[in-house]
């Protein structure tokens, strides 16, 4: 059974700082998803990482995937308050049609 674990689960940081959220998954998978969720809202797709070594960047967020280590990272550069949200990573086992989500990382960025 695929397990997806994120850390940290809670992250409070100051504007302007850099930080990284880690996502480990337990079985072989070539794809990794990152979503953002604001309180009471839906899941907004940030990145779909399609292969080993994939790196994608959008604004202050950069995601990478290492399938050998079964690890993805979401790096936040020079954080701004607008990035406060809960971030989920998700993956799926080979041949499956179900995404398994991590527990989520609640990110709070303070002025």
């Amino acid at each position, binding site marked *: 059974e695929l397990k997806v674990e994120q850390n940290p689960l809670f992250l409070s940081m100051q504007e302007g700082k850099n930080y990284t959220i880690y996502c480990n998954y337990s079985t072989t998978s070539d*794809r990794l998803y990152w979503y953002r969720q604001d309180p009471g809202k839906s899941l*907004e797709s940030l990145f779909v990482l399609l292969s080993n070594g994939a790196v994608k960047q959008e604004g202050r967020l950069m995601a990478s995937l290492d399938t050998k280590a079964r690890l993805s990272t979401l790096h936040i550069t020079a954080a701004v308050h607008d990035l406060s949200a809960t971030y989920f990573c998700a993956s799926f086992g080979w041949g499956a049609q179900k*995404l398994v989500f991590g527990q989520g990382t609640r990110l709070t960025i303070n002025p």
Partner: protein
Amino acid sequence: EPEVTQTPSHQVTQMGQEVILRCVPISNHLYFYWYRQILGQKVEFLVSFYNNEISEKSEIFDDQFSVERPDGSNFTLKIRSTKLEDSAMYFCASSEWGLTGGTGELFFGEGSRLTVL
């Protein structure tokens, strides 16, 4: 931009009542999903649907749950006899090629909040 739409946005029901949550996936998408999220917790898979049949379901998706694509546009989730623990946000999602095809992207609707009293 095409989007997944869900109705109702919020439904309050009494325990034991039947509930139907409705979704209109993006029009050219072939794969459909329901997920749920209990308040403050992680997102859990319920069921995936392709070619008019269930392709995968979780342990949560027991006999009280069913899905249907009654026409070419709607995708519904029915809970036959609701329990208190069914209170959650239910998200519908659709994908053009599924998780393993193309970009594998899933598009989520805004969710239907179900409150069981």
